[in-house]
């Protein structure tokens, strides 16, 4: 079971942290194997930024993502920039407030993508009161839509990763993410 995941957004949004938590949950708490890599360079400071994760129940030889079958898009620029090599029938999760879905309707149709929406940024702002946890809201949506990591492992990995004093807020963000994700 080799699963290739890509998460794209803009620098500062926390997509990297989201990817690290997913990989940490899979490898440390679900006892699977995981490798996390990231785009690394000047583009990470403001422009499109991405992280990639491979999860498997066997040892992972080739560590990079070639054709993601799960793509989480938290910005339109990242979606357009990184969607090219997505697999047919892949699962796409978008933040509908940050992405113009109509611009990729042709790709969704052509590749027969299964699309989910998660208004993670709006939920972080309005429900939790802190836009900064949008990445953790999206993490909840990712777990709910994909079942690739268990909720328990995700929570353990959140607690092991977020700054002290923000644990409750992040767990709440995670729970909200589970609730708001919808298949379109």
């Amino acid at each position, binding site marked *: 079971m080799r699963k290739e995941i890509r998460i794209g957004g803009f620098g500062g949004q926390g997509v990297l942290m989201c990817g690290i938590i997913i990989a940490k949950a899979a490898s440390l708490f679900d006892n699977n194997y995981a490798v996390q890599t990231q785009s*690394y360079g000047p583009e990470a400071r403001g422009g499109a930024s991405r992280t990639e994760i491979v999860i498997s129940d066997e040892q992972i*030889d080739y560590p990079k993502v070639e054709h993601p079958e799960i793509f989480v898009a938290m910005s339109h620029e990242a979606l357009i920039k990184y969607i090219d090599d997505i697999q047919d029938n892949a699962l796409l999760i978008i933040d509908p407030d940050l992405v113009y879905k109509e611009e990729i309707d042709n790709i969704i149709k052509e590749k027969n993508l299964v699309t989910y929406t998660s208004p993670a940024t709006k939920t972080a702002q309005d429900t939790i009161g802190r836009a900064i946890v949008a990445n953790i809201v999206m993490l909840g949506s990712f777990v709910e839509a994909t079942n690739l990591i268990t909720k328990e492992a995700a929570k353990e990995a959140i607690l092991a990763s977020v700054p002290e004093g923000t644990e409750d807020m992040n767990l709440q963000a995670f729970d909200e993410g589970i609730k708001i994700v919808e298949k379109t």
Partner: protein
Amino acid sequence: MEEKELFVQGNEACALGAISAGCRFFAGYPITPSTEIAEIMSKKLPTVGGHFVQMEDEISAVGAIIGASWAGQKVVTATSGPGVSLMQENIGYAAITETPIVVINMQRGSPSTGQPTRSAQADMMQARWGSHGDYEIIALAPSSVQECFDYTIKAFNLAEQYRVPVLVMADEIVGHMREKITIPSEIEVVPRTMPEKVDNYLPFDADDNSTTPMPAFAEGFNVHITGLTHDERGYPSTDDPDVHTKLVTRLCNKILSKRNEMALIETEFLDDADTIVISYGIPSRSALTAVKQAREKGLKVGYIKLGIVWPFPEEKLLELTANASRIIIPELNLGQIYLEVDRVLGKHAKVELISKIGGALHTPDEILSKILEE
């Protein structure tokens, strides 16, 4: 200490490995993609009684670790290609003075400042030949985050055992990717053993093909250290051809004569293999995937991974590949270790290079296509 599992970057694993191996001194000049090592060492070393010094450049960085090594510390610096270029003179000085030092090179696109944020394996020949003169070093090439930890410890142990500069030749990809590592409850560490205090002590009086226990400053030994050709006392002796021949031959042979014994080789599917993919460092991950895919197609393809690239384990490789007619070597450069493989194995097998530069790792498909070419 209890066994621990962590999910970390290769750079962090190198730093943790260094500290686990007993390293208590880091001097360096931060450079992408190795910067995290300096960052982590600056935080961790003071908490274990060690010292971190940010130097003005890489020339002084390696000078400082050589000095600290002679003060009795286990030492490391971390850098990338441009930094290693500046370090070359002092790496030669460490070789001739038999100073244990560990240099971590997170290789990036080159030459010159090249591609700071991209991967390469283009410093492999520099690792061996970068400084002037006949000398030998040891170079390891990690292909995973766990190996960043394990090989860094190994580098310290080899540096102590052979009193030689040891280079950890990692790369941007392995330095920045994250994987789970296991830190074992017990770690084998080669300690620094002081020589015995005897009358007429001769600090460099070593047998052929070996070295001597290393003294330290301020421990009561009469020690003179110089980059000039020196006799058993450590005193310059620059005119006598015999003294020079004896010293330089010994410096080389103490490493070369152990090349098969210290080899760190992993193999898969060699039994009936007529084609063998030989790799080191991060392309090994693509190579193993490709070899497994070739096996699924029923092809007799084997896999060899070199953990230690220098000294090159010639006889061991000849033995492992004796029945193969074709060798394929993927490298992130235009052909460096390929030349060494061809020199050693080219007489009995056709050796083919899969070269890739620009910063991305070979895909398994690229290696599989080469395997399928015949």
